[in-house]
């Protein structure tokens, strides 16, 4: 694979936590995109840690306006570039709260308009910037500050929203999932979006040390386990082509993934065994459905 840009377009010295999955994703994404890119971000971790006034980490033009409108702002940027007859890539990089929840209507509108925009969601599976509140990207059984485990609670009672399927329902030109644990795969997918005209959606699984509760040296390991258990399927759907799925040879039991993180640790108690089993069932279903 040839990457357009070898230099790092996310300057050092930003304010991400040690071991931040989203920061790893950003470096990889920008490396694949190159300099001729305008990035639009929603309010969230990435916005906060990259953009302190006068100390921006962005080496590409970047705009943040609000939490729920990054797709609409991108639509305007794209329309303006069309008017100016300029061809820079327009890429949204927003979190799961801004994508799955508050910004979903705007994203749906952008998909429907068929503009040449790539929407990348860094999915850390909760509202991390505000203190780990549950989002519709939060997985089943996960304990967050608004879906806490307790005497009468096993954590979040609903499964994770299937956002890539929602993107696919818009008949967009390219949908992919990726993980920071597989950088070559992620960068290849991001680079591919530059070759496809139309709306595109990539969802990147980005472990969060604070929100998920694991040691900051283990980010990649956690990301890998999510894929190896089948809980986070990695695939791509290019319009008109069969789905390509990342196969996993030696699948691991989900308990290994759950044990690694404080957000799931309550499920290892005997009385929560049913819930842990149900998460294993989600993995098994994914393995069957996607042919992992």
């Amino acid at each position: 694979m040839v990457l357009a840009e070898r230099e790092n377009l996310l300057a050092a010295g930003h304010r991400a936590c040690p071991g931040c999955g989203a920061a790893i994703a950003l470096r990889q994404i920008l490396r694949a995109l190159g300099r001729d890119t305008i990035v639009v971000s929603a309010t969230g971790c990435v916005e906060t840690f990259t953009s302190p006034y006068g100390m921006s980490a962005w080496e590409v033009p970047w705009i943040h306006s609000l939490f729920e409108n990054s797709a609409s702002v991108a639509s305007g940027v794209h329309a303006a570039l069309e008017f100016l007859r300029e061809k820079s890539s327009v890429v949204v990089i927003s979190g799961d709260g801004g994508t799955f929840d508050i910004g979903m209507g705007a994203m749906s509108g952008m998909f429907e308009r068929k503009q040449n925009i790539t929407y990348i969601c860094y999915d850390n599976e909760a509202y991390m910037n505000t203190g780990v509140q549950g989002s519709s990207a939060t997985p089943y059984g996960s304990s967050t500050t608004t879906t806490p485990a307790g005497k009468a609670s096993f954590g979040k009672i609903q499964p994770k929203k299937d956002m890539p399927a929602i993107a696919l329902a818009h008949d967009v030109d390219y949908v992919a999932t990726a993980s920071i644990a597989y950088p070559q795969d992620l960068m290849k997918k991001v680079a591919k979006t530059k070759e496809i005209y139309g709306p595109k959606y990539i969802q990147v699984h980005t472990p969060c040390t604070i929100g998920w509760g694991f040691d900051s040296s283990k980010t990649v390991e956690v990301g890998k386990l999510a894929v190896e258990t089948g809980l986070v399927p990695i695939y791509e759907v290019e319009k008109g082509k069969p789905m390509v799925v990342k196969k996993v040879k030696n699948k691991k039991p989900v308990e290994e993934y759950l044990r690694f993180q404080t957000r799931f640790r309550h499920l290892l108690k005997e009385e929560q065994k049913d819930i842990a089993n149900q998460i294993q069932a989600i993995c098994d279903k994914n393995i069957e459905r996607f042919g992992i």
Partner: protein
Amino acid sequence: MSTISVIEGSMAVAQAVKACRPGVIAAYPISPQTHIVEFLSQFVADNEMDTKYVRVDAEFSAASAVYGSSATGVRSYTASSSQGLLLMSEVLYAMAGTRLPVVLTGVNRTVSAPITIQPDHQDTMALRDTGLIQLHVENSQEAYATHIQAFKLAEDHDILLPVMVCMDGWILTHSFEPVKLEDQEKVDEFLPPFVPKYRLDTKNPLTYGAYADDEVPEFRLMMHFAQERAKEKIEKIAREYEAKFGDYFGGLIDTYRCDDAEIVMVAMGSVIGTLKDAVDKLRKENIKVGVLKVRSYRPFPGEEILSAVKGAKMVAVLDKSLSVGQGGPLATDVKAALANKQAPPVLGCIAGMGGRDMSMVLIREIIEKSQKAITTGKIPDIEYIALKRQYLE
């Protein structure tokens, strides 16, 4: 040559916007703004405009799209009303804070509940503190001129703020009047292409919308200073427009027969025409009244108002909205402008909310109440004009 056509107020706005050559328009339909965006869509469809029209999923997205296009250095326009303007409000605060010179039409319509599509000023009043410059117009010709002036004002590098042209829904947008449409060439001379001070550009990567640790008060103040500078610019641009096209509708304010007036009525928007007619009638009865039109609501022309009313015995302010728990917002601002000065007292009147018609009878009522207040020296906090008591039961 300019041409005079009998057209709808919405068409006057659409023609003005077309003459300003925006690169991007994004809008979402809401009554009574719809005709404006329909006309503009048709102009684009007929290749009469070189404009990218972004059809969006909500007013929130309309404001967000022009936010993005303006930041990319392209002249941008949107329009909305009522609930739509409120849905935009979060974006409009950020747009002003980011100093993006978008022009929008605020087609005035009241706000739910109860739901109705009737006009009043409740919607744009809710955007009072956003940082938007707000210019109110009296008729279709002024709407035409003010949109062209608005782009020049917004894009001035000393200002760089969004400008909202406020016009009463239905009364102006859906009435047919003769409107003078100017030559494209002359409009181009008056309004050269937009030269952005900054823009999103891969050749010069800048960060827009940074996180502020400590800078908030200064950023907010800089918007205020820009509005202070806009006071001079609004008048200057209105005079330049007059020199170019022969029309002048006022700068920050306009006055009608105020010089020797004992009672000055202060108002905004389409009611001004009715008030001028009423003044002519009342003057024939030897009642010395005048009208002060507030054309610029933000920035608020406190000094200009003081200087226009200081010889009067009473200032009667007509508010087409109510700040619940306080009173009429315009009256409140006028009172603030006259406080601690040698100035006449202010009688705040709530009139014409929810599209209730402002007739000669009601204007006479306001004058009688003002006269009574002058003779008795007792000035009520608020006068409610044409209240239908049966609904209060």
